[in-house]
């Protein structure tokens, strides 16, 4: 089935490495296409290779073989400097443990990608405010992350991921450290961003019910491969 405007194309991607004596095929000859604007959930047991795949798409890791084409660019062949630029401009990333820098205020945490992208100082404050409005968190800007609840921290992390206006948002178990209500709220927020900003979202999770409720499509991995018939078309949950 041809897809008009793919955001991400994985073409026979493999990521192998050796750990001690064993040869690990974390991602093994995997092909997958994510159309622009889709909310894709990557499911699978632990060790199935879903996080490795996410890191490959994020440009934090390089495939052993195969091509990863994001918005027309094969990131597998980028130089490390261009890869950094790709992470900065095309990708936004959130994590299970939020990964906010504890000694910076919320505002500074969100500003960090703008510093890395060398955005003018005068432009930074409005961009930070805009990102915070998107995650519905405009107060407590001067607080430190540890003074916030988990859900709030994840919102700040999402704001930080959004501040450079990326096209693709990658989420690595974003609800893993949150209670179910908060987790739902976060996923609902992600869905709003997807529809509001037209973002492509790839989320790694092992909470199938949540994924089924919020994601457009579920991709199930096992042993580094996309399981047969794993790409499940699913009606948009309403």
């Amino acid at each position, binding site marked *: 089935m041809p897809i008009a405007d793919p955001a991400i194309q994985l073409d026979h991607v493999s990521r192998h490495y050796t750990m001690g004596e064993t040869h690990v095929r974390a991602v093994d000859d995997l092909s997958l296409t994510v159309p622009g604007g889709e909310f894709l959930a990557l499911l699978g047991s632990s060790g199935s290779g879903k996080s490795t795949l996410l*890191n490959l798409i*994020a440009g*934090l*890791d390089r495939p052993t073989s195969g091509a990863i084409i994001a918005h027309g660019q094969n990131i597998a062949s980028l130089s*490390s*400097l261009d890869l*950094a*630029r790709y*992470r*900065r*401009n095309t*990708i936004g*990333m959130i*994590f299970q443990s939020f*990964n906010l*820098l504890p*000694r*910076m205020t919320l505002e500074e945490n969100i500003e*960090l*990608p703008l*510093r*890395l*992208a*060398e955005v003018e100082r005068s432009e930074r404050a409005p961009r930070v405010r805009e990102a915070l409005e998107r995650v519905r968190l405009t107060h407590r800007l001067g607080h430190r992350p540890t003074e916030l609840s988990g859900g709030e921290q994840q919102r700040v992390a999402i704001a*930080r991921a959004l501040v*450079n206006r990326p096209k693709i948002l990658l989420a690595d178990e974003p609800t893993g450290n949150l209670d179910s209500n908060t987790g739902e709220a976060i996923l609902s927020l992600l869905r709003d961003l997807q529809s509001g900003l037209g973002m492509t979202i790839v989320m790694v999770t092992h909470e199938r019910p949540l994924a089924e409720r919020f994601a457009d499509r579920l991709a199930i991995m096992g042993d580094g491969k996309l399981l047969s018939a794993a790409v499940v078309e699913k009606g948009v949950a309403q």
Partner: protein
Amino acid sequence: MKPRDLTDLAVRNLREALLRNALTTLGVAVGVASLVAMLSLGVGLQQLAAKRLSQSGLFDTIFVTPKNNFRGMGRPPREAASEKPPRALDEDARKEIEKLPNVIEVYSQVRFFTEVRFNGKPFATVVAGMPESSRNSGSFDGMTGNFFSSPAANEAILQIEFAKDLSDKPVSLVGQELVLRYAERQALASANAADASANSSEPTGGFSVVPKELHLKIVGIVETEPAAGFGGMGNARLLMPLETASALRAAQVNDLRDIVRDNTANKTTYPSLSVRAKSPAQVDALETSIKNMGFGVFSLLDASKSLRTFFSVFDLLLGIFGSLALAVATLGIVNTLVMAILERRREIGVLKALGAADSDVQQLFFVEAGVMGFFGGIFGVLFGWLLGRAITFGTNVYLQRHNLNSIELSSVPWWLVFSALGFAVLVSLVAGLYPASRAAKLNPVDALRYE
């Protein structure tokens, strides 16, 4: 990242582990301080020596002689059978030399051995004429009493040992009178110049020697004789204005030699002239100019060159010892930053995930090392300066207890301040090279997984 953001982040990171980074910075400061203190002593000693030497007049004075009359007697002319007769060292030559750039004064040395009477008792001593230029040469700094009131005053300055011979209380001598007894040359009938005449055995000239007396007022007492250089006959212990001394036409040691040699001249010639340059640095060029005029020259410049070499080596050694502490301090920087990498592993991973390039991470650690070096350098220069002051203070307390003049032992010139600061930053950056590249190479996937 932009430099401002980079510095901002670096300083913020340093503030986070404040105690550890402050201690590391203190280590750098101690290293720089030891370097600055050592070098300030080296520089101070060098300045002290240079000052003493320039006060002695040895290194800014050129001794000029007619070419065939280079120092010792009976020495064969260097260029055998020279084409033209050597140029006479006469008044014209003196004026010509005086017009050369950087010349303070050209004078003929007057120095003779004679007898001084004080309170009716005779004392034998060497008397020397002091040119007016020695007033400001620093030679008479710290003397008791005053310099001569005028260039032709009948006044004397005594060297302290001589003053002690004259009286138990040397200071009380200032203002008193003494009598100088000397032998005046008086030209014989046919001689028309004072010191240029024929052999005394010939009927044409020569001179006779007549005993004379002159009353001199003691105006000051000085520690050492300045310009003790080329006179021979040991140090002069009684100093008087050069003009006064010249006017005495006292018989000098060189006179007899001149009579033997210089039997043709009809005008005043000098056996030698002393040329005082503005500073020792100009002696070399001045020497060449005078040599080109056709005279023999001699100075102690070579000696001062080797002295400078000595001080360069001395400073180098002090610098090496001073740098040892700094070397230890740089290991502290390496250690601190490597620790910081371990602690901030996850943060480095986050930075990379947010789009930091390897070079951003590298620069961040690099700047952190540089900032520690910079502050370490500032405090180090300050400590080093204080240390130098303390050593000078201690030395002077000791010197004063032994009734010696205090000295400026350490000196921190601006070039030392800036080069120490620059060196501290440079060394810290070098120390930061390894941690920075290690941080940059950190695999973000591993770093993010790190708890």
